[in-house]
């Protein structure tokens, strides 16, 4: 046998290597290697599987009481479904449930107020300290310096109201809703029977965009379409409600009340209609003298004939109804306007609008409304029940200062603009983690947070004075029944609103501030609550927020007049301050008007909600309404440059 020499050895070696490489290549292994490299280099996340299950849940934190069906994979909730429709915040429940910035344990402030520095404490420690301070205030005879701000009239809100009143304080407030606004202006809130009406005259109420009870209104809208109910929308921005309306009446911003005065004037003088409300004679005299049709036409920019036609159509319909309360989620309206619009209902004797009250919610407090409280109120303890007045109130800055001197307790799942100034943050559960009489909790608790009801009850149990009046355990809460009861008779309250009516015309024609700033609402953002949720951010239109730039909308002709073009920057100055934004040109906005998206400009609302746009409330008019105690901020006179 021939000895294998070095050369042969190398040949064999080289052959083996070549063969090996060829074999490896043609085996496809390198390609699999590539595939593996792709996966490894990208770290693809694979959601865990599991058994599919559907469970039911009812929301107690929203006023609509949304019913949802939760799709679960194992213990994880992956989808919210509903056959009946849900409000945006309930539809977002999963994004809240699994929000990485959810507060997991009770927090105590550890830095300066507003610095956002907190440290975790136990429930016991937090509740003990808070209740001790409440007890101290009560024993010192300062029970009335304990205040609470509720987000809405849900069960949680109701329970908080009960607690504050039991403590001996009169300081319980609600963020402006259509209910709280009208209750204060009219002595009861207007219950609309939208199913019975055949003609709806809306004064800027964004009826299908979240006004009132959004779930209910969606159904009403479908019903109207079927029945052919006529909807007339009066507004200075062409919203979706304006577009689905049978008629859109474009109006100069802020002059909605003038139109109501004009129509009332016409119906009273020409059609000899009267209202049964107290002070009607006095009121009608003012209106007839001050707001003849010619002047109304000038103020509103709507021709006299058109006003007459609207008035005639309204009066001649079988069961017409006029709706006040501008906005969808951010509600606003002066009492002069609410009264004037309700007067129209009484003039035509509408059967679709009646005044009612809630048996458990009076809206009667130390101050007539939240803005007045923020401006003038004094408190040593403030409890924020899921509310965010710092962001939502035009007096947010003032409130912030006052919160610096008081004990502030925020009951909330996420640290919002107001909670950032709190001394204690008591985290609440998502409604999916809460057991209700109908359902078990849909998902297991994600952290140490507690149900808002439970928090309020445990707090109450530690406050001597409140103990007796409050439910002992969560199941007792459901025994509180909040019934609808008839409201007292309707009064025009002329003495209180006369001054406002007198000044109204002047306000509309301020020469120093020639342009009007009005808010516009964005789908899913609501009044800012939605911004913490990434899937809401995903649906924001590029005409509102694009590449970090925040846009206000302006009429093309107006833009030309003031020298703006698409995308140019704009400084908006009101008597209260100035803000900066960019301009988007669109004729969906009335001339001489700037429409600014509402709900943006959070100072502290998770990293998703922060640093996005500006909060127009900072510069919006802050004249407090004499009846509602809420600023009529909807239209603000500004100058632009």
């Amino acid at each position: 046998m021939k000895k294998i020499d070095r050369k042969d050895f190398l040949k064999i070696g080289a052959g083996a290597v070549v063969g090996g490489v060829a074999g490896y290549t043609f085996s496809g292994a390198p390609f699999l290697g590539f595939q593996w490299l792709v996966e490894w280099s990208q770290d693809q996340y694979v959601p865990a599987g599991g058994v599919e299950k559907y469970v039911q849940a009812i929301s107690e934190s929203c006023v609509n009481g949304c019913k949802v069906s939760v799709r679960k994979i194992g213990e994880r909730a992956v989808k919210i479904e509903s056959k009946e429709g849900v409000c945006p915040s309930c539809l977002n429940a999963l994004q809240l449930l699994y929000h990485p910035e959810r507060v997991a344990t009770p927090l105590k402030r550890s830095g300066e107020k507003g610095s956002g520095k907190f440290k975790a404490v136990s429930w016991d420690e937090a509740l003990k300290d808070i209740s001790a301070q409440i007890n101290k205030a009560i024993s010192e005879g300062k029970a009335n310096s304990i205040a609470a701000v509720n987000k809405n009239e849900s069960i949680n809100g109701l329970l908080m109201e009960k607690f504050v009143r039991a403590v001996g304080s009169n300081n319980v407030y609600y963020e402006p809703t259509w209910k709280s606004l009208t209750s204060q202006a009219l002595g009861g809130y207007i219950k609309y029977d939208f199913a019975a009406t055949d003609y709806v005259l809306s004064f800027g109420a964004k009826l299908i965009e979240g006004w009132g009870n959004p779930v209910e209104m969606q159904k009403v809208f479908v019903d109207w379409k079927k029945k052919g109910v006529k909807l007339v929308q009066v507004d200075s921005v062409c919203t979706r409600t304006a577009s689905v309306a049978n008629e859109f009446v474009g109006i100069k911003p802020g002059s909605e009340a003038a139109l109501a005065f004009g129509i009332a004037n016409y119906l009273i003088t020409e059609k000899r209609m009267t209202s049964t409300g107290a002070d009607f004679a006095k009121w009608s005299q003012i209106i007839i003298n001050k707001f003849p049709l010619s002047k109304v036409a000038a103020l509103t920019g709507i021709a006299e004939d058109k006003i007459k036609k609207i008035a005639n159509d309204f009066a001649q319909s079988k069961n017409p109804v006029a709706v006040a309360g501008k906005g969808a989620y951010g509600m606003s309206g002066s009492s002069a306007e609410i009264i004037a619009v309700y007067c129209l209902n009484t003039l035509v004797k509408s059967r679709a609008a009646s005044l009612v009250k809630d048996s458990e919610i009076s809206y009667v407090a130390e101050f007539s409304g939240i803005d007045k409280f923020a401006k003038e109120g004094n408190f040593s303890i403030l409890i924020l029940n899921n509310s965010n007045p710092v962001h939502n109130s035009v007096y947010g800055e003032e409130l912030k200062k006052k919160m610096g001197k008081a004990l502030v307790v925020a009951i909330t799942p996420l640290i919002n603009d107001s909670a950032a100034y709190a001394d204690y943050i008591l985290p609440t559960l998502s409604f999916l983690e809460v057991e209700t009489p109908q359902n078990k909790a849909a998902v297991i608790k994600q952290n140490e947070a507690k149900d808002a009801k439970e928090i309020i009850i445990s707090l109450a149990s530690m406050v001597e004075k409140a103990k007796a009046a409050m439910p002992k355990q969560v199941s007792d809460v459901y025994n509180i029944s909040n019934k609808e009861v008839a409201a007292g008779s309707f009064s025009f309250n002329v003495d209180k609103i006369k001054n406002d009516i007198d000044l109204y015309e002047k306000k509309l024609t301020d020469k120093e501030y020639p342009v009007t700033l009005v808010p516009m609402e964005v789908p899913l953002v609501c009044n800012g609550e939605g911004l913490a949720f990434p899937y809401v951010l995903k649906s924001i239109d590029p005409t509102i927020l694009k590449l970090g730039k925040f846009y206000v909308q302006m009429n093309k002709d107006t833009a030309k007049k003031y020298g703006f073009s698409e995308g140019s920057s704009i400084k908006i100055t009101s008597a209260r301050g100035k803000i900066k934004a960019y301009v988007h040109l669109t004729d969906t906005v009335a001339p001489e008007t700037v429409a600014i998206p509402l709900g943006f400009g959070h100072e502290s609302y998770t990293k998703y909600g922060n640093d996005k746009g500006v909060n127009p409330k900072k510069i919006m008019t802050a004249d407090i309404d004499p009846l509602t105690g809420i600023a009529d901020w909807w239209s603000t006179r500004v100058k632009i440059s």
Partner: protein
Amino acid sequence: MIVKDSKMKRKWGMAIDLDKCTGCGACSLACNQENNMPIFEDDSDVPKRVAFLELMKVTNDRDAKFPDVKTAYLPKMCQQCEGNDTHGHKADPPCVSVCPAVATDVGDDGVVSQIWSRCIGCRYCQTACPYEARVFNWWKPEYEGTFKEGLNPEVSVASRGTIVKCTFCSHIWKRERDKAVAKGILDINAVTYTPACAAACPTGAIVFGDLNDPNSEISKLAKSDRAVRLVNAIDDQPEDKKKALMEKKQYPNPKVYYLTSQKWLRDMMRFKKNS
């Protein structure tokens, strides 16, 4: 498993009634949740945004001035184009024939599929799509911390650098089908389903169903006078001219119908001379 009748008879289609749409955005939220859309801190880079369903705000201020203007929200997802046979050519959606890696195809139920893990990210299909319905993962899809808990295991998380798109939630069909099979129903045509957007619509504006079934609601809606397809002016042509054109040239021929009684919306579907 031997299935007796295994030929797919259904052709899924969608009708979106813009007269009923309130622009609430529920469809968009539901879609994002169902399809595991990536979560970014700032999603205001709209041109690079990853979402299957775009809630387009449409106004007619091109044609009108305040207060004669109108606003609508138009939920736009993949239009599931069908294409049309021309000169004996096989009909294909604009995006399918161009893919160099066969990552996208038309199913026998008419749904244009997209396989995330096959896509090489050349974006040719995106270029071909006249509806901007395909989106590219410019950044790595992120799901911060506990957000991962809410992910749907039926839709795989895409890699960076791949094209993703609406597939009419066809994983829900599969889910329904699996349930039927578990019950012993093997007929492939036994199940129908509802995509996430249609299920979430509170006013019932989104109708989904089988276009091959002449009695289905969708078939009737698709034939109604109110039906118009996105920016597809060929729908406005007289029937014979339309037919002649369709033989000469391919058109996307989508299976998503928009219903509107509003003239302004129909006008906005057409391009007009620049002023």
